[in-house]
């Protein structure tokens, strides 16, 4: 058999692509996933990390709300190690209309979302960081999800089912015979190699970049690039997700995640050319801080770690200038039915929360084309690492009396953490002290999770995501990468890129402790270490 032949090629290494590859692989298909850079580099890794209950969409978009709550409950079962079951509040502030609360609760219940009006006093007790001025509160089953971990776990499971992954590989064109897509031309940015891959079906799962991929295939998919900016704070000030109980607007969700919390978002239409390099503007920063402090006043005095922005893959509908009113619904286009182009499917729209359902819909379409009749099992099969619910129990099973760092590893890797128990105490030494990432965990990621750069490593292990933003751990981790890849020159450039990437998220919020830390990093790398 030709090693470059597959049943299905999936383009896009975000959560939709990874989820689709997992589903296809679990249904017995030979799969190949192609991603031009690294996993979760688009909208997947650039959002709140909110495990939506669906409540946010209940009033305006009942269908999305229903999808959300259903997937929310599924992810709690299959992705335990990627999820924090925090619950959430929808608060009404004195400036908001308390009358909206009942409309909201009714809509939630209609969509199947448990939404309970609670006393503001109880809300203040449940969530001490909440704005004490609140006049109303509704409790909903929101949570938080680590999108990097979720994406990596899906891809890992696809690989365990025989799937192949080509990262740093860009689709440069389609192999077309008559009215049928037969495969793709690709270029590997690392090796410089050009390779053709063949499959009877290709799935376009490229988010906002899906428009460009569709164009390349000769069909038109109109996307609406809506930028959303977010800020990460250096402390986890809240334990419950805090939302505003009003029509969805700017900066009205505060999500706790790991050691931090995230406020967002804004929504601005941007030209396609900007999608590859979205920047956070000073106005957006000001708006996020001002509005965020209304949810949790302590945010105004909390150090900001980083600013970032993503582009929602909304499908164009009308002339809505902000994109807020476009349905977040799932769009699956079989281009044979729609455009007469065989062997090509686009899966888009939707959101992080509904990635599994999107994958199921896309995989159903793939299977129809291939005449495969096998039911989807992704809703009932835990992802690798998620076989147990409590990470503390996982850590205890592996180490008996686990250290803080070992517990942290178990919370990130779930049951897969047993892989880093090598028996060599040297592997327990910490590389990243902020996030407590050990030598063993880093080596495991380098070996088994397709890591080629420090930034890739950060997405898989949280190295450099903590308060020091990689000041100390970047160099140490670079040493391990250099050893694994045997190339120092490449690692030197990689270190440059990593620090530049960190700075890109730091300077838009460059004041206070963030600027102190940045000054230190700049001084140390330039004058002390000699980068």
């Amino acid at each position, binding site marked *: 058999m030709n090693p470059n032949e597959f049943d299905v090629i999936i383009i896009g290494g975000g959560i939709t692509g990874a989820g689709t590859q997992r589903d296809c692989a679990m249904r017995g298909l030979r799969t190949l996933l192609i991603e031009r850079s690294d996993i979760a580099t688009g909208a997947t890794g650039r959002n709140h990390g909110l495990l939506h209950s669906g409540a946010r969409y209940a009033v305006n978009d009942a269908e999305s709300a229903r999808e959300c709550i259903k997937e929310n409950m599924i992810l709690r079962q299959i992705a335990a190690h990627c999820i924090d079951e925090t619950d959430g509040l929808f608060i009404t502030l004195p400036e908001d209309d308390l009358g909206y609360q009942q409309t909201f609760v009714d809509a939630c219940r209609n969509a199947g979302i448990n939404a309970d009006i609670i006393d503001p006093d109880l809300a203040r007790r449940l969530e001490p960081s909440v704005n004490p001025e609140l006049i109303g509160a509704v409790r909903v089953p929101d949570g938080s999800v680590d999108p990097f971990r979720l994406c990596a776990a899906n891809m890992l499971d696809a690989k365990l089912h025989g799937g192949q992954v080509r990262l740093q590989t860009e689709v440069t064109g389609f192999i077309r015979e008559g009215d049928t897509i037969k495969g793709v031309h690709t270029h590997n940015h690392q090796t410089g190699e050009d390779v053709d891959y063949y499959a009877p079906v290709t799935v376009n799962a490229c988010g906002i970049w899906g428009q460009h991929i569709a164009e390349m295939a000769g069909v038109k998919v109109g996307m609406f690039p809506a930028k959303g900016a977010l800020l990460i704070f250096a402390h986890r000030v809240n334990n419950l997700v805090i939302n505003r109980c009003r029509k969805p607007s700017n900066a009205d969700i505060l999500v706790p995640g790991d050691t931090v919390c995230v406020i967002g978002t804004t929504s601005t239409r941007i030209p396609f050319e900007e999608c590859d390099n979205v920047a956070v503007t*000073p106005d957006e920063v*000001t708006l996020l801080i001002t509005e965020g402090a209304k949810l949790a006043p302590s945010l105004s005095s909390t150090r900001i770690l980083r600013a970032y922005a993503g582009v929602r893959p909304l499908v164009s509908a009308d002339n809505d200038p902000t994109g807020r009113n476009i349905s977040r619904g799932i769009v699956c286009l079989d281009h044979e039915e729609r455009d007469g182009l065989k062997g090509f499917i686009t899966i888009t729209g939707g959101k992080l929360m509904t990635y599994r359902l999107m994958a199921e819909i896309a995989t159903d379409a793939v299977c129809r084309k291939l005449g495969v009749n096998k039911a989807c099992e992704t809703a009932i099969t835990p992802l690798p690492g998620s076989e147990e619910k409590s990470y503390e129990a996982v850590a205890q099973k592996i180490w008996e009396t686990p*250290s803080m*760092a070992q517990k942290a590893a178990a919370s990130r890797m779930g049951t897969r953490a047993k892989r880093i128990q090598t028996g*060599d*105490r*040297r592997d*327990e*030494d*910490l*590389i990243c*002290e902020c996030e407590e990432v*050990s*030598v063993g965990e880093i080596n495991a990621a380098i070996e088994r999770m397709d890591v080629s750069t420090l930034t890739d490593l950060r997405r898989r292990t949280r190295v450099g995501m903590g308060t020091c933003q990689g000041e*100390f751990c970047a*160099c*140490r981790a*670079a*040493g*391990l990468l*250099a*050893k694994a890849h045997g190339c*120092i*020159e490449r*690692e*030197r450039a990689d270190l*440059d890129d990593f*620090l*530049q990437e*960190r*700075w*890109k998220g730091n*300077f838009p919020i*460059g*004041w*206070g402790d963030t*600027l*102190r830390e940045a*000054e*230190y990093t*700049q*001084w*140390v790398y*330039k*004058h*002390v*270490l*000699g*980068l």
Partner: protein
Amino acid sequence: MKFDTVIMGGGLAGLVAGISLQQAGKSTAIVSMGQNSLHFFSGSFESMTEPPQRVADLFKDAGIGLHYRPGVRLMPLGTFKESAMSLEDIELFPSEKFARRVLIVNFQGYHDFFSSFIAEGLEKKGMQCRIRFINIPDIDPTHQAPGEMRSVQIARTMDRIWEKVVQEIRLLLKDEDAVILPQVFGLQDISVPGRIRQSLPAKVVFVGTMPPSVPGVRTQMLLKKRYQLLGGTYLMGDEAIKAHVHEGVVHSVVTRNLDSHYLEASNFILATGGLFSKGLVSNPFQLYEPVFGLDVEFAQDRNTWYNPAFKEDQPYMGYGVKADEKLHGLVEGKPLQNLYAIGSILGATHPELGSGAGLAINSALVAVDQILSEK
């Protein structure tokens, strides 16, 4: 409490000023938060070449050896940098190719010394390198808690067991004419680097590690010891939080720990450092100096504080308090007559005084001369 001069900040600038004033018979106090920029000192005094004799003497009397020959030094990531005045244990070479064959020695499980980067850097310059990891039971990572394999912890042990390291290297050494070691020697016992040099039949080069810098921490300890020996009052773990100023004259400062016991003096020296050391503080709208409210030079538009490229010079790093040519700090354009701002709190506002460690020393001397010239 009353002194002739109260110095805020116990880094290089504050200590040089304190020692010089004590030597001249003045009574001084240094208010120090503890950590300062000497903890990540590279060992070379940036922008300083041949120092005035009194600086050389000051370091010598404190037990700190210096050398002044300009040359290049090997950096922790394997690059070279031109340097001049440096601590004795920083090797300065006339040219980058300082050896034919080099043995690079690292410790098992030590991730803060970048031996492979150094090897690559040297090989680019035509030197053959061999990296060897040695396993010394006393610093075996398997006996340490995670996160313990850091420069200062290792250096504490090394003062005791450096001879074992020398033995190991003797066994490893083949025909190399140079040996590179991490800078984790001579933290308390300053003679150790020299004794290692004498014990090995090859040129020994100590190369920096991830901070804290062992030579920097040692320099800080020796200067502090010298200052205290001269009778200076070193108030450790304290910081000035407020000042009493009347008609352009500073009367006293309030510190966090001393509460109502103000520190009174005829002169005050502000050596609290830049942004990192909190001598300057920034918020989204401005940079300010928190103790005296000195005028600060910075751009109004925050967007111009930064260069989006990490590697480029950053405008914000040049911002500093405004001071006249005698280094009196200015408030609303008017000098405080008995307050001197020295060291990195000046940013790049006085380029003639240099930058980094050079600025710290030069500006300290300007302030000291002013104070001593008074009647």
